[in-house]
């Protein structure tokens, strides 16, 4: 299985956490919040699209809302393959970090 990039991992996690509200703007806000950086909208469109193509995400159009000028939202949700990819990423993370002394960062 292909390993997720860090951005992809964050985005998938954000989508999972946001649940029914997982569309571009909240995802962007979530990423800003997590990483404490300003993410541009364009910066998340491309990974979202890629993830959807790879089958980790699926999207549906929701009802339109007035603050969007009457336009639809595209709500994303995780597919089982997406969850599997996240699980794999977590496992790799665990494995690679295991044995690194906690004191190295002075977190003990």
């Amino acid at each position: 299985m292909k390993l997720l990039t860090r951005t992809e991992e964050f985005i998938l996690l954000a989508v999972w956490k946001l649940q029914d509200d997982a569309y571009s703007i909240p995802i962007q806000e979530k990423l800003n919040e997590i990483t404490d950086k300003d993410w541009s909208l364009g910066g998340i469109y491309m990974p979202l699209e890629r993830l959807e193509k790879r089958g980790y995400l699926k999207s549906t159009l929701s009802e339109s809302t007035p603050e969007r000028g009457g336009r639809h939202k595209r709500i994303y949700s995780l597919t089982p393959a997406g969850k599997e990819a996240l699980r794999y990423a977590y496992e790799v993370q665990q494995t690679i970090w295991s044995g690194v002394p906690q004191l190295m960062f002075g977190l003990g």
Partner: protein
Amino acid sequence: MKHRPPKLAEKILSKLQYDDIWKTTLGDFEEYYSYKVNKGGKAAANRWYWRQVLRYTPSKLIHTYYWGLEMFKNYLKIAYRNIQKNKSYSFINIFGLGVGIASFLLIGMYIVHELSYDSYHEDSDRIYRIVREAPDEVYLGSSWFGVNPMPLSIAMADGFEGVEHSTAFNESEALFRVGQNTFYEYGINTDLEFFEVFSINWIMGDPASAFRNPESIIINQSLAAKYFGKENPMGKSVFFNSEEDEPIERVVTGLIEDLPTNTQLEFDFIIPNFSKDDYERESTYWFNNNQYSYIKLAPGTNPNDLVPQLSELINPNLLADPYYGNSPEKLPNFKLMPASEVHLSSSDINFNPGKIGDIKYIYMLSVIAFVILIIACVNYMNLATARSMSRAKEVGVRKVNGAFRSNIMMQFSAEAVIFSSIGIIFAFALVYMLLPAFSGLVDRSFDTSIFLSTPFWLALIGSGLIVGLISGSYPALYMSGLHPIRIFKNQIKGGSGNRRLRNMLVISQFAITNILIVSSIVIIKQMDYIQSRDSGFERDQILAVTITDPEVMNHYAALESLFESQSNILEVSSARKLPSEIRSQTSGVSWEGKGEDEILRVYHDRVNIDYVELLGIDLIAGRTFNHDMDTDTSNHLIINKTMAQQIEWTPEEAVGKDFTFWRRDAKIIGVIDDFNFLSYHFSMAPLMLRYENIVDRAELLLKVNPQNMQETIAFVDNEIKKLSPNYPVEYAFLDDTFNNLYQNELTLGKILNYFTVLALIIACLGLFGLASFMMEQRTKEIGIRKVLGANLFQILGLLNKDFIRLVGLSLIISVPVGWYVASNWLKDFAFRIDLGAGVFIFSAAIALIIALITVSFKSVQTARTNPVESLKGE
């Protein structure tokens, strides 16, 4: 709170939408915009939004153009392959479109030239010609005249309200002599105002100084080169001998550029009119209408407002004479005609400066130009849709792969434009090659400088593009409307769905072509009729020598007997005018028993002994002017039959009657049969021939032996030169001068013939192409028929039947239109052919036979195909 992004930016972004994702993206942007406003203020938010516009625009543009270009490359490639694959089809289309465009351009050039007459003058929109209607005069079928009395122009030049300048001019013909060079030259005499009204380009001198001296002359470059070569002509003298004035030496005081070809002004020299012997009288006498009058209006003057003032100016002067005083209804009416319209709108006006065209022929030629273009377009449409079968799968595959209807339309339009672009190149080559021949045909001088003009290229490329788009329109609509599923299920038979329309196109093509054929035949027949009809006088083998030196006529008797003693000269006579050019008319005639109000307009000419005999005119009663009569008694008259009839005399009664013309007493000695001294446009009119010794200018008429013609001419030339060494001698044959009367018709006939042949060729090529494709689809059917025992002729009949039916139908449609057009044209002739069924049967036969031959080229080939060949694939 809800914030809306800048309208324009939003609009641009929404236009950039190129896929599905974009729909929601735009919503995202708007939501984020609101967030930005709340966070960083409106200005920052706007900046951000605009930045998005800038970021997405380039990619969209690249997307569109890159893929648009890729697709266009594909269309080009497919078009190229199709041209290669079907060479004959491509040839037919390109040839047809090329010839169509070339014809259109050539005729267009001619029309543009004809319409451009006299619009080059400065303020040409303010230059008008005064034309006059004389209610009591009818000359050559019209009572409108282009000539007016000189005092009218003089009065208008003198502070007349609404008129800036007013000029009068009149033609002058004169014998020039400079050293040994002696020629007749044509020019005008006019006033200084002439140069204010018309734009004349001066090379040396200026109007005021050129006209200071009455014995001056202004010449153009051609004359300067002819008489003075490369020398400076200014101050040189010219011996100038005109018919109406005493010969004088004139000094060149001005050199002007040759006039352009598109002007009604035709002259090589200008002399001041005040230098003429009769100027004193001419400039004050209101009853001599011999001047072309032109005015330049003050800016903003309505020409119609001027008309009543013109009458007010002239009427008091005319009413002083009892002729008008007793019957004011004879006073003239005036009309102002824009100078730029004179060339084409003067065919009903008597006396015009320069060559006069006919707006009717311009309309006819425009129609022909468009018709040929349309026939070529129709060819393309027909062939393209007939081949829809072979292209249908391509369209199907494109559609399945996601092509929109607009893409397919684009493809087929582009293909047609590619064809017409190649056609343009072909058309240019054609125009280039045919230009000299065409110039000769229409008697105008077009040269290659036209290829340097922008309008020519615009017209070439523009007509090519428009033709391409029109040609491609129907194939594009039709092909793009095909349904992919039906294509792949083979439910589309070779152009079955559009057969009706295609048939209509073929019918209209051939109907138009046939109308052209009918018109050509009618013109040919009428011209043939004009030349072969007995005009009442003989024109063959009669040499006319124009005598301009009075010295020759002084020795006429001796010359006559000398010529008559020659074996190659059968008869000798002379007249003031050629028998086909008698145009002098008078109503100053009376006879015993003439009614008070009776007006008889009589054409008249002065003729010499043996005139009637030489021309072979039939004598009905009395006798002719011959050697037996007492030549001392002048004022002997011969009248024609029509004149006797109009006076209500029988020919026998007429002989011996006293007759008065111009208050001179005369006697009618003979009545001759009518002959066509006017052109065939006019019916027979009264004619009076007077016997009179002609002393000035004359036409010497010699009936000559057709053998040894060269020697005879050389002999005559030599004898006349002996008497008048300083005058040029001009010859013509009577039949040529007779034909000159129909120059406009002859030209139209020639143009029409050529373009009819072209139209026929294009239409036949189309028919051939169409037949080829239709028959290819029937090869299997033919194979089966042959296997079952059909013979060649049965199959030929089968194959040709459809096409012949179409062409036959088109012929029927063309008859009423053709009849209308032809009879309208013939209406202008008093002597004309009957528009019988023969013309239509003949033209129909031509069209049918040519169509049959065309189709048979293909059908014979198809019918002779070995069935084994056509069926082995099954």
